[in-house]
C-alpha cells in the first residue's frame, strides 16, 4: 500500500475541459488496493470519461457494495456524492437515491462477488426496472479480499493460483443483463482504456439501465497461467465486435472510415456513438442475436468485448412510474405534503 499522498503538482500543460478542470480534479484518494490491480485502471478510465464529458463532479453519485471493487469509489471523483452500502445491496440504495433525486448521474460500482453472488437478486431487479444508471462490475473472477477463492463468474475449468480446478458453472453477467432487459450492455477489459473510456462515456449519456462488465485481472490471486482472467489470457482471447468513438452533440465526425463500416448511434440527449464494426454481421441492436453470438463465442473460448447491445430509445424507471419531473429534494413542503384534503381525495379514489 502506498502511504504518501499523491503530489498535487501536475503537468504544466495539462488540458482543461469546458468546466476548467484538469483530469487531476476528478481523482480521489490514493488507492489502497494491491499495486497493479485492474480496478485501479477502471478508476482511471472513469476519471478520464468524466473529465472528457466535463461532468461537474457534484452532479455524480457513486454507490458501491462490499469488496475490492466497492472500495474503488474512494479513489475517483473525490468531489462527488458517495454511498458505500451493505454487501450486495448497492442496487436498492441506488434505486432509492435515483427515485428521490433524478437529476444526479448514478454510477454503481460493484464486483463479481457483490453482484453475482450475494447481490445477484438485487443486480437482476435493478436492471429489470431500467433505472437510469451506469452499473459497472469490476469482474476478476476471484474473491481477492479473502485470498483467492473462485467467485461465481470464474470459468468452469479455470485454475486457481493454488492449482485447484473450478468445477462450478460460471455466471455470465453480460448474458444475464441482456436477458433481463438492460438497454445498454457492454464488456471491456481494464487493460484497454482506448475501448473502456468511450464505453463509459456512452453509458453515462445513455438514458436507462447501462451495464458494463469490465474484466479486471486480480494481480495478487488471478493473474497466473491457467486463469481465464489474467492479463495474458484476456489479451489473447479478446474479440472486440466493434470499436467506438464517443461524440458529444455538436462535434463533427472527422475520422475517415471505410464506407459501410461506420454506424452512428444517436442517443436521446443528442450525443452520438460512432461504432466501427470489427466483427462482420454483428448488430448491436438485436438483443436475441447478441445473446446467441455471446454464447457461441463463449463456447469457442473467446471473450467478446465492445458495445454488445444498445436500445436507442430506451425508457427508464421514472417514465414507467410516471413520477414527477422535479427531483423530490427540489419540491417544497406544500408539494411533498399536500395535506389531509389531498389524502382524503386519494383515499376516496381507492374505495
Amino acid at each position, binding site marked *: 500500500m502506498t*502511504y*504518501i*499522498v499523491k*503530489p498535487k*503538482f501536475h503537468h504544466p500543460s495539462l488540458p482543461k475541459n469546458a468546466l476548467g478542470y484538469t483530469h487531476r480534479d476528478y481523482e480521489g484518494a490514493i488507492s489502497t488496493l494491491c*499495486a*497493479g490491480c485492474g480496478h*485501479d*485502471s477502471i478508476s482511471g478510465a472513469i476519471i478520464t470519461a468524466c473529465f472528457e464529458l466535463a461532468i461537474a463532479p457534484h452532479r455524480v453519485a457513486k454507490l458501491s457494495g462490499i469488496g475490492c471493487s466497492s472500495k474503488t469509489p474512494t479513489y475517483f471523483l473525490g468531489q462527488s456524492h458517495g454511498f458505500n452500502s451493505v454487501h450486495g445491496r448497492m442496487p436498492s440504495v441506488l434505486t432509492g437515491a435515483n427515485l428521490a433525486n433524478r437529476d444526479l448521474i448514478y454510477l454503481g460500482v460493484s464486483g463479481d462477488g457483490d453482484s453475482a453472488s450475494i447481490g445477484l437478486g438485487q443486480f437482476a431487479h435493478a436492471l429489470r426496472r431500467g433505472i437510469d444508471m451506469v452499473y459497472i462490475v469490476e469482474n476478476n473472477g476471484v474473491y481477492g479480499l479473502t485470498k483467492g477463492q473462485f467467485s461465481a463468474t470464474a470459468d468452469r475449468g479455470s485454475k486457481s493460483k493454488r492449482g485447484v480446478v473450478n468445477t462450478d458453472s460460471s455466471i455470465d453477467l453480460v448474458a444475464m443483463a441482456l436477458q433481463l432487459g438492460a438497454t445498454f450492455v457492454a464488456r471491456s477489459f*481494464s487493460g484497454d482504456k482506448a475501448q473502456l473510456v468511450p464505453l463509459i462515456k456512452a453509458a453515462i449519456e445513455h438514458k436507462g439501465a447501462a451495464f458494463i462488465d469490465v474484466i479486471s485481472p486480480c494481480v495478487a490471486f488471478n493473474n497466473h497461467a491457467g486463469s481465464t482472467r489474467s492479463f495474458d489470457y484476456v489479451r489473447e482471447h479478446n474479440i472486440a465486435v466493434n470499436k467506438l468513438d464517443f461524440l458529444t452533440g455538436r462535434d463533427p465526425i472527422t475520422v475517415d472510415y471505410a464506407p459501410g463500416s461506420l454506424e452512428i448511434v444517436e442517443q436521446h440527449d443528442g450525443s452520438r456513438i460512432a461504432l466501427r464494426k470489427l466483427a462482420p454481421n454483428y448488430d448491436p441492436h438485436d438483443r436475441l442475436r447478441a445473446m446467441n453470438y455471446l454464447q457461441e463465442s463463449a463456447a469457442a473460448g473467446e471473450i467478446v468485448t465492445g458495445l454488445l447491445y444498445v436500445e436507442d430509445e430506451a425508457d427508464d424507471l421514472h417514465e414507467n412510474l410516471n413520477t414527477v419531473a422535479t427531483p423530490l429534494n427540489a419540491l417544497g413542503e406544500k408539494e411533498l405534503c399536500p395535506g389531509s384534503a389531498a389524502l382524503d381525495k386519494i383515499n376516496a379514489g381507492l374505495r
Partner: protein
Amino acid sequence: MKLTDIAAPDYFHKVVDCQWACPAHTPVPEYIRLIAAQRYGDAYLINWKSNVFPGILGRTCDRPCEPACRRGRVEKEPVAICRLKRVAADYKEDIRDRLPAPALEGNGKRIAFVGGGPASLTVARDLAPLGYACTVFDADPKAGGMMRSQIPKFRLPDSVIDEECGYVLDLGVTFVGGRRIESMKALIDEGYDAIFVGSGAPRGRDLDIPGRKETAANVHVGIDWLSSVSFGHITEIGKRVIVLGGGNTAMDCCRTARRLGGEDVKVVVRSGFEEMKASPWEKEDAMHEDIPILNFLVPKSFTHENGKLTGVVFEKVKAVRDEKGRRNLVPTGEPDQHIPCDDVLVAVGQENAFPWIERDLGIEFDRWNMPIVDKTTLASTRPGVFFGGDAAFGPKNIIWAVAHGHDAAISIDKYCSGEDIADRPPPGVTLASQKMGIHEWSYDNDIAPDLRYRVPLRDKVIALRDIKTEVELGYDDALAFKEAQRCLNCDVQTVFTGSACIECDACVDICPMDCITFTENGEESELRGRLKAPANNLSQDLYVADNLKTGRVMVKDEDVCLHCGLCAERCPTGAWDMQKFYLEMSHAGRSCHSRA
C-alpha cells in the same frame, strides 16, 4: 524513435538537471539529502571533492544549477541549491582529518602556477596529494585571487576564504605571495615540468568619453576600486555615486559604495533592466539596499568644474529591433539627462591581458589576443603550458574556473606521466536500487509542496554600517531542512524493465505528472505530440523502452518527473524501480591513468 540506452552515463546525468548544468558536475541531490539528514560534514566533503570551495561558492556562485533545477518547471522557483551549499559549509563539524594528507614523498615533478585564484588552487588541490611540488605565484599577499580581491567582504568574509584556501595550501602547496610573474620566458627557464596559468581577467574596461581625463580623480575602474577597497587602501567615497554597468561587478560596486559613505548611489545601464548581465538575485540585493537601477541611458560625457567631477550626461535610448530581429539601442530624441554626482565607478566589463607572455615561446594567441587553448585539455599550443579560469576563455565565474582546474590537473598529470592528454578518463557512475521494503525507499519520496524559503538577511541599518558585516545570515538548520525537502531527488532514477511489465497501466494512472505513456513507437517529433501529456520541452529526453508483450513501447517524458517513485510503488512486478544514479567526475590521480 530509437530505444534509450540507459547504460550511457549521459542519459541519466542529463535527468539530474542541476548536476548536468554545473560545470564541475557536483552531485547536488546527494548532498542536499545529507543536509536534510543534518550530515553537514558529509555534505561538505561531497562538495569539496567536486568544487573545492563550498563555503565560497555557497555565497557567491553564479549557480547555473538553479535555472536548470526541475523544481522551477514544476512550481515557481528552483531549490535554493547555492545557499544550501553554504549551510553545509557553515554547520559542518571539523572535517580536516578527512581531507587528503600531503604526499609522504614527492614524485619529483614541479608545477608552477601563475595566479592564486580558484583555477590554480583547484589544480594544486588535485595534484599536490599525488606528490607534485606545486608552487603558486600571486601578486597579492594572500591566496584567493579575485575571490579575495573583487568580491566584497559583506558577501564573502575573509574567514571563509582563509579556511578554504588554507585546506588547499595545507596539502603541501607552496604559496609565493607578492610576486607578480612578469615574464613567462623567465618562468619557463626555471625548469618546471608544467606551468598552469590561472591569472584571471585582471583588467577592467575603461570608458573613454569626454571629460574622462579631467575627472580622473573621481572616476574609478570598478574591479581595481573593489580590489583597493578589499585590501583597505580605499575607505571612503563621495555621497553621490553613479555606477556605470549592469553586470555583477556593478552590483558589488554599488553595494560597496553604500557602505563607504555613498548615500545616493545609482546604477545606470545602457540597455533595459531585463537585459542586464547581473544575476537577478544580485540586482534584487542591490535594490534592497535602496539603490535604484536606471536603464536605457548611454553615458555621453563626464561634466566637471574646476577640475572636479560634477556629474555624467546621458543620452536617452530605446531598444528597436531591426529587420533581422536584432536589438539595437537608438536615441529617443529626448533631451540628454545630466545626473550630478561626486564619484563614478566604471564597471562595463573586464578583459584579459597577457603582456607578460612573450610571443616567441610557442604559445599562440588569436586575433583578440587570447591564448589558443584546447577546450577539453586546457592545453596551450606549447606542450606543458596550460590555462584555466578566466585566463583561458575570458571572464566567466568561479565554478567554471574550478571545472577548468580539474580538467587541467588531469592533463598535467597525464603530461607529466608521458600519457596522451587527449585520452580523458570517463566519469565514475553507479546505479543502485533504493528499495528498502514494500513501498519503502532509502530516500524521502513524499513531495513537499513548500515554496522557496528566503534566506534571512541582517537588518539593513546594521548591514550598511560596516563593510565587513556579512549581509546574508544563511539558513538556520530548520529552514535548511525545509528548503532541502523541496529537492525532488532527480538523481533517483525511474528505471524500467520491459520484460517484467504486464501492461496493467498502474504507473500511467498513478503518475501525478502524466509522464508515462504506453503506445506504438513513432518518430520522435510525432511521438512527443501524442503522449498522455505533450512533451514540449525538447531539451528533456524521452525514455523509450521495449520488450512489452503487446509490442508497444513505454515512453516516459523526463521533463517534469517528480521522482516520487509512485510508478514503482504501484508496479506489481517491479518493472519500475527507483535507482540512485551517482556520477562523480574523475579527477587527476591513479584512476585517470590509462590501464594499459
